[in-house]
């Protein structure tokens, strides 16, 4: 009898442990997104050659000051900047130190809504400085051209020096865009955003700030029309 009762107690406690998730287990990268979550930068699973300048989460509803973002690299806390709110308070972001180093980063976010309910989740990205060798080296050049052809940016991965003017030209018969990640909010690097570019249309942008900048064509995200610019 004792054994049966003890076994029952053990089973009950085990079941209890499994059905009582902590807030950290609410939304994992592989699970459906948190309520009112729109997108994040970096996006889940992204790989960078340089530490991105920020971790950013966009929602479709106004957030309260108690919202938060914490970042760890390989399990250790990363010292971020203070939490900032974007326009209409629908986005939260923290600056990441450029010397945060290589490794796997975990970003945990918690958005507090006006009714004090919380929408929380997490995502991961990696930084591997060695992967910069895969980027075409245009450092020292003042002008670089990227073609938009066959639903691709060519070249898609480049390295340039500060003050380099990069020009995108649409060689396809269909419209393309140059939009900062993340899609669809496009607010990691707001200055890097175009309206639709028709055939033969060009768009130029001069990069000043060192770092790695991720962009894409909003008309062709499913076709993986992505590009990166490292400024160093």
């Amino acid at each position, binding site marked *: *009898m*004792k054994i049966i*009762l*003890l076994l*029952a*107690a053990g089973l*009950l*406690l085990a079941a*209890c442990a499994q*059905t*009582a*998730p*902590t*807030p950290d287990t*609410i939304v994992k990268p592989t699970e459906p997104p948190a*309520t*009112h979550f*729109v*997108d994040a930068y970096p996006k889940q699973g992204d790989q960078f050659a340089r530490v991105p300048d920020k971790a950013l989460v*966009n929602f*479709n*509803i*106004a957030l309260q000051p108690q919202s938060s973002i914490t970042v760890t690299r390989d399990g250790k806390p990363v010292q971020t900047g203070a939490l900032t709110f974007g326009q*209409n308070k*629908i986005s939260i972001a923290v600056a990441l130190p450029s010397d945060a180093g290589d490794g796997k980063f975990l970003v945990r976010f918690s958005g507090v*809504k*006006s*009714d*004090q*309910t*919380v*929408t*929380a989740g997490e995502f991961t990205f990696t930084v591997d400085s060695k992967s910069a060798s895969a980027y075409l080296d245009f450092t020292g050049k003042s002008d670089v051209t990227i073609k938009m052809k066959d639903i691709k940016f060519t070249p898609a991965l480049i390295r340039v020096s500060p003050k380099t003017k990069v020009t995108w030209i649409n060689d396809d018969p269909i*419209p393309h865009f140059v939009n900062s990640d993340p899609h*669809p*909010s*496009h607010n990691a690097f707001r200055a890097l955003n175009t*309206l*639709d570019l028709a055939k033969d249309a060009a768009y130029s942008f001069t990069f000043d700030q060192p770092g790695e900048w991720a962009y894409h064509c*909003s*008309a*062709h*995200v*499913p076709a993986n029309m992505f590009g990166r610019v490292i400024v160093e």
Partner: protein
Amino acid sequence: MLKALSVHYRILVLAGLALALAACAAATPDAAMMKKETATAADAMKKETPDAAMMKFPEQIFAAHFTNSTPKHGEAVNKSPDKIVINFDFTLNEISTIILLKDDKPIEAGKPVFTSNKLSMSANLPASSGDGVYVVKYKACWPDKSCHEGLFAFKVDSKMAK
């Protein structure tokens, strides 16, 4: 004696089980943390009396790239506007839509009208729309047909004109 101890032991174990159950219930995360807020504006207003509904707006949902609207969210006007205009900072695809609800009931808005630069779309409001809380639900779409959903609300109250 042994039998009495066994009974006491069983009582103790049962009490332990009850405590474990209580602890289990308490250990579930804060209900607020787990709350998946999916209630729509219409749901929120269902429990309100018509007068209360008149006073209360649903929370605004922002689509990515939404810039502003006319009327604005939360605005109260004394006569129903001819049209509702929504502005964006990206080039809209014409599959974008606007749905209008007045006091929780759909009203005919027809297909949205786009400006030539496709940064704005509008819906005409029937002239006899009358007083009430209007909820505007919209989908702003890209050329790849991916869409962002948004919502805002305004109130028409003809008594305000007096």
